[in-house]
């Protein structure tokens, strides 16, 4: 890329700043930490999916050798939850358990062995309640309430929005396509099991080291649960051994060790077992979806009515946001004049679902992109051309009032079509082989914070001293995605030094400025912009001092490769460290700060804050498959993916994120599922996790993984630091529908749900042989009583972004009248 030439650091493939510690085993993850006098905690979890706790007897556990403390729900009267509207969880359930694995008691002992032994001595008397296993059951049995809050019965959230009169648009379309899809739940499966270590500092203060993606939100929730001032709590996010959204929620075990450390005055550590990680979950929501989509004869969208039903599991988690996300980002990819979505999240007696890579959007994207393939087939259009002909434009507003900035989607489609040989392959490969295409878009950070406030979303502080040392502080959290590397690169580029000269101090609420956390693909953009501001301010001071010393105009000063010099005059030059000395002499001790607050969302209706983002990334993907018609086995020999990243700050890491996203997407497409079964009645009838182990939870191994050809499309976005957009989540999204579409191209069957297993392919092939509709997928969409939609006129129809309370026609009339007068 020619753009790389202008920069010393940005755009060059580099070793990541934290790489050495990772390859030498020196990096300390949470469970690698120990402190003198440290104790160990273990949690007792409910064996019932739904029950009331009638009594807990902890006497025997307390007198077990080595046991220091036993905690129960009584010790935690205050509930918590990441979203202010869903504070429905207790560190230890006081009276009501809602899934197999819900924590009810904790033992803190000298070692893990003693704690485990003591857990067995706790006697809990449960009164079993009827169990809700599926969203259909949740809707059919409002009388069995899992929570006593929410919309009604077991409905947690009910959201509906209509941008323009969709029924009218559908009525005027040449074709209306109606399809139902199902996306099974899956889990993050970070390789690191969650761990946390708390240490009291006396006077009611403590420090918690944890594998958390969001130390700031965790600090707030700890303050709430423990009823302490947040300023007395220091949360240090250790480098995460992978998160993918699974370490976003504040978790029971973090509260428990904090409380125990405060009570005992000794450090307390916990590390969840792998089985417990499956129970903590917060993964992909299983979502049933119905699309009614109107198109013109030549394949342009006219309107879409999307309905979703989310299986939320036992707690709220990020559920209110997840519910929105099954709808709001849908209009980003293609021109869609009118759009209505209705979304409903229900509680069931399973581990809570929450944010997993792509948070709420992979599910509708799967449905939308598979439906487009069906539309192209029916209209006899090439699926790539169909998409190319209607991609959204740069600097435009969607019908749903999302502001799109830079937009490289068309280029992404062109590049994957070209790279994959699409035109020679689609519809032309021998039976059993096929290619499929799909696209997507994702946000670069949520435009509003999880709790309402007008403060910055990210803050960065920078210090420099006479040694030439540069230290940058930010609350952002390294979860493996490379956030420390982004931070160092932006500071280094701005100050004309190398990333090795920048020390990053991150994810520590005790010493770093607030950053909201590693979620919603926000770090590069928000932390990056804050870092750019802080570094820019430091640069100004260096320039002023150096210009004075070199007796040149400040405008002629260049900072590059560790030197500070006058452009065009080689004699007027000094080292970076010398420039810092002059600046420190002139200004005193050097320190700057920078912060970033996202732009205001263009929509003004209620909940218009969910979906807007400073920028959107775009991706297009072609997957090739080979399907064995005898076994149903699906082999993926190759994947081509183009991702519009704006600018790749470190192409090596950016490519790694893309390939990692494809990997996780293929897993969801082909095998990953977080599923449950009922034990036989004589064994309690409980609803249990089918496969809470890494062996049984199928994921892609090195042997299954196809070659991935990555194309980075660089169209810098003005809202982003050096134009860089996100890459952590977007590239996962087009993979699942591209696989489904490739299978259709290969063997002519439609699998309208994921995972697409050999068994489903065989079933569809059998239907095909019998002359029936060769489709496997959900047959019907249940009756859901959705909320009355918030009606907003799209920008293209004269709307002003506010909700229109009147009837649609009246609203249109008013606009027309205004136009006349």
């Amino acid at each position: 890329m020619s753009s790389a030439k202008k920069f010393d650091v940005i755009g060059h493939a580099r070793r990541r700043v934290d790489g050495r510690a990772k390859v030498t085993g020196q990096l300390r993850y949470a469970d690698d930490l120990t402190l003198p006098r440290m104790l160990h905690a273990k949690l007792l979890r409910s064996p019932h999916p739904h029950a009331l706790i009638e009594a807990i007897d902890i006497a025997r556990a307390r007198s077990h050798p080595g046991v220091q403390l036993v905690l129960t729900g009584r010790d935690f009267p205050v509930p918590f939850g990441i979203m202010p509207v869903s504070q429905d969880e207790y560190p230890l359930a006081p009276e009501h358990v809602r899934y197999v694995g819900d924590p009810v008691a904790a033992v803190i002992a000298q070692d893990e062995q003693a704690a485990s032994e003591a857990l067995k001595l706790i006697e809990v008397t449960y009164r079993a309640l009827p169990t809700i296993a599926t969203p259909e059951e949740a809707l059919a049995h409002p009388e069995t309430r899992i929570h006593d809050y929410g919309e009604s019965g077991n409905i947690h959230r009910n959201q509906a929005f209509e941008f323009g009169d969709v029924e009218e648009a559908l009525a005027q379309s040449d074709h209306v396509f109606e399809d139902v899809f199902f996306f099974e739940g899956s889990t993050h499966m970070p390789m690191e099991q969650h761990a946390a270590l708390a240490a009291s500092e006396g006077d009611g203060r403590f420090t918690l080291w944890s594998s958390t993606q969001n130390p700031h939100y965790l600090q707030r929730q700890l303050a709430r649960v423990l009823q302490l001032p947040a300023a007395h709590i220091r949360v240090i996010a250790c480098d995460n051994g992978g998160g993918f959204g699974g370490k976003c929620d504040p978790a029971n075990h973090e509260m428990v060790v904090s409380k125990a450390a405060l009570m005992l005055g000794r450090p307390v550590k916990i590390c969840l077992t792998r089985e417990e990680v499956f129970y903590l979950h917060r993964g992909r929501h299983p979502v049933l979806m119905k699309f009614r989509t109107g198109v013109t004869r030549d394949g342009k969208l006219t309107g879409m009515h999307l309905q979703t039903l989310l299986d939320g599991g036992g707690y709220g988690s990020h559920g209110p946001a997840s519910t929105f996300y099954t709808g709001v980002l849908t209009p980003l990819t293609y021109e869609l004049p009118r759009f209505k979505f209705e979304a409903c999240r229900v509680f069931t007696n399973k581990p809570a679902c929450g944010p997993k890579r792509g948070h709420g959007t992979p599910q509708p994207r799967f449905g939308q992109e598979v439906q487009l393939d069906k539309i192209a087939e029916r209209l006899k259009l090439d699926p790539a051309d169909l998409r190319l002909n209607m991609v959204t434009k740069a600097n435009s507003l969607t019908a749903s009032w999302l502001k799109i900035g830079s937009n490289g989607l068309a280029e992404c489609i062109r590049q994957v079509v070209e790279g994959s040989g699409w035109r020679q392959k689609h519809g032309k490969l021998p039976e059993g082989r096929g290619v499929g295409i799909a696209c997507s878009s994702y946000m670069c950070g949520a435009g509003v914070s999880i709790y309402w406030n007008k403060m910055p979303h990210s803050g960065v502080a920078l210090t420099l001293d006479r040694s030439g040392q540069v230290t940058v502080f930010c609350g952002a959290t390294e979860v493996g995605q490379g956030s420390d590397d982004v931070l160092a690169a932006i500071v280094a580029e701005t100050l004309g030094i190398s990333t090795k000269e920048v020390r990053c101090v991150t994810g520590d609420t005790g010493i770093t400025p607030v950053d909201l956390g590693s979620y919603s693909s926000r770090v590069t953009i928000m932390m990056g912009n804050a870092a750019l501001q802080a570094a820019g301010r430091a640069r100004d001071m260096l320039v002023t001092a150096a210009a004075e010393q070199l007796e040149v105009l400040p405008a002629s000063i260049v900072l590059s490769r560790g030197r500070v010099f006058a452009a065009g005059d080689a004699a007027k030059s000094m080292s970076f460290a010398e420039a810092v000395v002059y600046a420190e002499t002139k200004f005193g001790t050097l320190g700057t700060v920078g912060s970033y607050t996202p732009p205001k969302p263009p929509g003004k209706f209620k909940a218009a804050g969910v979906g807007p983002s400073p920028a959107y990334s775009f991706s297009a993907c072609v997957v090739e498959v080979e399907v064995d018609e005898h076994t149903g086995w699906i082999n993926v020999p190759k994947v081509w993916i183009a991702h519009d990243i704006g600018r790749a700050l470190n192409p090596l890491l950016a490519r790694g994120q893309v390939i990692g996203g494809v990997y996780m997407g293929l897993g969801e497409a082909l095998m990953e599922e977080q599923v449950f079964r009922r034990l036989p009645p004589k064994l309690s009838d409980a609803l249990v996790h089918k496969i809470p182990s890494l062996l049984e939870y199928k994921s892609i191994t090195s042997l299954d993984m196809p070659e991935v050809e990555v194309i980075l499309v660089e169209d810098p976005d003005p809202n982003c630091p050096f134009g860089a957009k996100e890459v952590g989540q977007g590239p996962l999204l087009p993979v699942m529908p591209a696989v489904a579409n490739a299978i259709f191209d290969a063997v002519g069957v439609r699998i309208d749900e994921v995972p697409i297993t050999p068994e489903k392919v065989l079933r569809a092939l059998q239907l095909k042989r019998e002359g029936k509709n060769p489709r496997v997928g959900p047959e019907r969409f249940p009756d859901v009583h959705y909320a009355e939609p918030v009606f907003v006129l799209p920008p293209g129809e004269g709307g002003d972004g506010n909700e229109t309370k009147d009837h649609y026609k009246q609203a249109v009339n008013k606009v027309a009248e205004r136009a006349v007068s």
Partner: protein
Amino acid sequence: MNTMAKPIDRRKAHIRLRVNGEEVEVSFAPYKTLLEVLREDLDLTGTKHGCELGECGACAVLVDGQPLLSCLKLALECDGCSIETIEGLAEGPELHPLQAAFSDHGGSQCGYCTPGVLMTAKGLLDAEPNPSRERIKEALAGNLCRCTGYQQIVDSVEDAARVINEQRAKA
């Protein structure tokens, strides 16, 4: 609270090991796995765990030169063995070619699977200096990585093999 109870004495087992070339003696509770003894009793926390059930490969170390899942091995069975862990891979400040290649090719993202992957790869390259891409994938099939999608891991091992062979040719 039970502060007056009898102290727990679990350190009943005692073995000698050679760890990364150094002789060590260690006492521990007899039920402990090699993984636990390395991490908890020898402070070698570079070796990770993702399941403690033999399902993920994060805990792989070399025992007498062979890759082994340390979570499945009782430490008691290792008396007199020679163990190599991630901490012993670099020679002084010099990265091992595998470590350098992982840094240069993006073989490590969150880094959590990395020690296990590196030790498994070392076991492979020690035994087979010129493995094919397929062979590398096969050797690493028991090491789960949730971040990289494996492609850059395989690239890294391939490149390290090349470098090691070049170094050998020069020597």
